[in-house]
Structures are given as structure tokens and as C-alpha cells.
């Protein structure tokens, strides 16, 4: 028990002065991109530069929900592929990612919401993603803990049922990808902060870190909630991003009672039971940008009230832990995957908001292809930054998410 332990990914290596590709951010997307750069494209001379430790960001703080029932034509196929990749990655990485495809139940609390769900379901079905509309009674059959009585604040009219989604163990994804990438020779440098990016004649030439300069002509910034500030600060590209703090919490462990991910927009609450038995539930955001990871008593109360209304059997439970992380929100709730445009050799991947866990497998795969070939693969072409000036916003949300003077 007190024996020597071996690091799971590679030995500690010296930081070299040059790499074929450098990735800033040892989160989900950085690790996944490095893995696929090595595996699919033979680019193994790669350094991941991580300021803290891998999984420090959203990667280690998310509530691990995966699903593919997004809203619009470009997003559904990307998220579908991401979902399909979990069992494949589990085998490839030879690492148990604990994919529990228990299915997601998205509660609807009005006839208008049911109508909107029909549209989303039709889009999903068109793209080959399983999704159904069910009524309140059917929802109760799937999740007996639900309260389908009329006299709660938001009575349940029905639900969007998405059987293939569920939960993947988020830490396992971080560790599995790190191990997978380093087996190919990718170097992961923790406790290393990127501080500046140097360009010459519109091309990436090197980056500065607290451990020295690294030369490279392929750079990816994939630093989650920190990306927007880094990208503006280092290369002057402004992004349509607002960085908010998002919170989640878990209750004390219980015997199995909930075998679906249940979510409700009206109650602003989602919950699932982890394999350890805790009810993991989220997610509140205070509506102004900040880089703290503070939690709030206000939110604990809100969550207690919401859960005990639509799943009253949870009344009296104790919350064990509450935490927060950053969510980089875009106005159309779709990410920004871009590169080799504004600056040659410079790539960026951000704006995932609270959808960056479920998507990291596919996004890593396509960002790697993008970086290897210098051209955006069709799957992610529509996610470029220029869509905002071309008024081609994606409509992942019915109403733009803005934190501007206009609302």
C-alpha cells in the first residue's frame, strides 16, 4: 500500500527548446488533440504545456454528462461522433472510462417546451441519433422518483428521452488520454505556464513559458475558460466569449435509485446518481463574468428546493461537497474551432461553455486533423470565428446568450 508508485504517463522529461507542435492547456481538448495528433497523424514530437496539473480546469470539475441530442445540423453530427467514440476509446486506450449509457431524460414543463422538443428530436432522428418524446406517465415509469403531480411549481408535461447518452468518468478520460498520448511520445509538462506567443511575418515561431522559450510552428491554445483571455492577451484576437463561474455539488451516497440523467430547464437543475451512489447535481451560473471558482449558499438552497420538488424522495438528504469551475460561453452556445487563418500555424479551440466534456473526443480528433493538414475538416469548418461577423450564428439556443447592454 505504501510501495513506490509509478507515474501513469511517461517519465518526467526535460523541456526541449523545440517541438513540431505545442498545445497550451492540459485539459480534455488539449489531451485529446495530442492523442489524435500522435495516433492518427504520426505527429509525436508534441508538448502539452499545463500551468497547473492535467485536469485542473473544467476537465476535473465537470459533472460528466454525455449526450448527442444537440439542436442544430452542424452540432448534432459532431456530438454524435463524440458519443460514439467513448466505447472505442475505452478499448484503444485500454483504460476503463466507465461509460454508463443510462440515458438522458430532459423534462418539459409546458406545451410550448414539448413543441420545441419535437423539433430537437426530429433533428436528432434525421442525423441518426436516438431521441424520443414521451409523456409524463412514461417518464415516471422510467424514473419512479419523479413527481408528476400537478401541484408543483413546474408540473412535468413530458420529456425528451435520449437513451444512448449518460455518464463517463471524467478523471478517467484525463488519465486515459494522458497515458495514451504519452505512450506515443507526447510530453506533458505540468507546472509550466505559457506566458507569450511570438510570431514573425504572420506565422507562429515560438512561445514563452516560465521555463523558457519553445520554438514551434504549430500552436494550439486549448485552455478552456482561460482561452479567451490568453488569446486576446497573446495574439490580440478578440472572441465572442464571456467567462462565467459554474457550480455543481454532490449529496451523500445512497443505494441505487436513479438510473438516468434527469434534467430540467425550468427548475434549472439536473441530477444523476454516480456509480459511488452520490446524487451529482448542477449547475448554477452567476450571470456576470469572473475567474473565481467561488460557490454560493444561494445556490445550495436553490438546488435543495428544485430537487425536492421534482424528486421529493431526496428531501432531507445532505450535500457533501460543492465546487465550481469556469464556463466560456458563446452567444450561440456553440464552440469556436479555428486556426491557420488569422495567423499561420496558430490554432484555437474554445467556447465550449458547459458542453466541453461530452465533445472532447471528437473535437480532439478533428482539431488534430486540422493541425496536421492545415485545413479545417468539413465536420468542424462551420465552427470558425468568422461566422459571427457573417451573421451565421448556430442557433444551439433559441435565444442568444449575451451579457451585453442589449438585454
Amino acid at each position, binding site marked *: 500500500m505504501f510501495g513506490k508508485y509509478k507515474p501513469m504517463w511517461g517519465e518526467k522529461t526535460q523541456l526541449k527548446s523545440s517541438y513540431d507542435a505545442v498545445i497550451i492547456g492540459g485539459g480534455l481538448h488539449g489531451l485529446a488533440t495530442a492523442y489524435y495528433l500522435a495516433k492518427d497523424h504520426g505527429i509525436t514530437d508534441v508538448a502539452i504545456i499545463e500551468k497547473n496539473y492535467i485536469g485542473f480546469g473544467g476537465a476535473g470539475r465537470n459533472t460528466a454528462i454525455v449526450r448527442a441530442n444537440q439542436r442544430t445540423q452542424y452540432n448534432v453530427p459532431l456530438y454524435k461522433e463524440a458519443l460514439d467514440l467513448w466505447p472505442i476509446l475505452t478499448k484503444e486506450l485500454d483504460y476503463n472510462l466507465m461509460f454508463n449509457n443510462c440515458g438522458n431524460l430532459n423534462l418539459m414543463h409546458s406545451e410550448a417546451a414539448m413543441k420545441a422538443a419535437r423539433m430537437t428530436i426530429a433533428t436528432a432522428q434525421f442525423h441518426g441519433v436516438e431521441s424520443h418524446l414521451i409523456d409524463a406517465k412514461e417518464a415516471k415509469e422510467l424514473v419512479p422518483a419523479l413527481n408528476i403531480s400537478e401541484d408543483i411549481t413546474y408540473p412535468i408535461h413530458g420529456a425528451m428521452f435520449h437513451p444512448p447518452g449518460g455518464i463517463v468518468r471524467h478523471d478517467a478520460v484525463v488519465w486515459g488520454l494522458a497515458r495514451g498520448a504519452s505512450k506515443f511520445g507526447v510530453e506533458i509538462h505540468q507546472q509550466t505556464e505559457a506566458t507569450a506567443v511570438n510570431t514573425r511575418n504572420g506565422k507562429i515561431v515560438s512561445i514563452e513559458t516560465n521555463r523558457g522559450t519553445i520554438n514551434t510552428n504549430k500552436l494550439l491554445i486549448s485552455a478552456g475558460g482561460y482561452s479567451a*483571455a490568453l488569446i486576446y492577451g497573446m495574439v490580440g484576437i478578440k472572441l465572442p466569449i*464571456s*467567462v462565467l463561474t459554474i457550480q455543481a455539488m454532490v449529496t451523500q451516497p445512497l443505494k441505487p435509485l436513479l438510473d438516468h440523467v434527469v434534467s430540467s430547464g425550468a427548475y434549472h437543475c439536473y441530477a444523476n446518481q454516480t456509480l459511488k451512489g452520490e446524487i451529482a447535481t448542477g449547475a448554477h451560473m452567476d450571470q456576470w463574468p469572473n475567474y473565481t471558482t*467561488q460557490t454560493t449558499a444561494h445556490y445550495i438552497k436553490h438546488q435543495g428546493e428544485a430537487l425536492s420538488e421534482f424528486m421529493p424522495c431526496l428531501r432531507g438528504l445532505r450535500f457533501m461537497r460543492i465546487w465550481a469551475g469556469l464556463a466560456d460561453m458563446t452567444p450561440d452556445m456553440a464552440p469556436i474551432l479555428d486556426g491557420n487563418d488569422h495567423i499561420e500555424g496558430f490554432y484555437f479551440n474554445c467556447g465550449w461553455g458547459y458542453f466541453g466534456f461530452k465533445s472532447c473526443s471528437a473535437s480532439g480528433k478533428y482539431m488534430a486533423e486540422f493541425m496536421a493538414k492545415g485545413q479545417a475538416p468539413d465536420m468542424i469548418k462551420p465552427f470558425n470565428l468568422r461566422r459571427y*461577423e457573417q451573421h451565421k450564428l448556430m442557433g444551439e439556443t433559441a435565444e442568444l446568450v449575451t451579457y451585453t*447592454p442589449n438585454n
Partner: protein
Amino acid sequence: MSLTITCPICGKRNGYEFRFGGEDKGPRPDEDSLTPQRWCEYVHLNECVAGVQKEWWVHKDGCGSWFTIHRDTVMNVEVAKPEADR
């Protein structure tokens, strides 16, 4: 989360009485010769400063006025106007 904001009319109040109104981007751009890029910048693009920024708030559950403050986004506290802006 703990935050207080100083309304020019009502004084220092609980932050939850207010609504954030975006980074201060200066005056609305002129319609003449307005390009999609400039409009996009004004409407969508942010600097996302990790540090002190000038930003808009509205006293939603109070007097309703719009005003700017300086706030440190890392500490999440309102701060005095920096020297450079005075």
C-alpha cells in the same frame, strides 16, 4: 457569490440586485461606413480581461439606472477607477 456594486443613485448594494451589461466598448459605432467586422466587434467580441475591466451594470431591482464601474474579474470585487482612466 459575494459581490457588492455601487449604484450612482442608490449607493453600495447587494450584487444580485443588478444585471451585468457587458464590457465597456465605447460609443455605438457610426452607421455610415459600418463594416460587418466592426459591428461584430461591438456586439459580440470581448477582451475577457483577467484583471480590472470597465463594465456596464443596470440596477434592475432598484432605480433602473445604467452605469459603469471598474471590477477585478479575478477577485470578483468592485475597485476604484484606475489612475489612467481619471
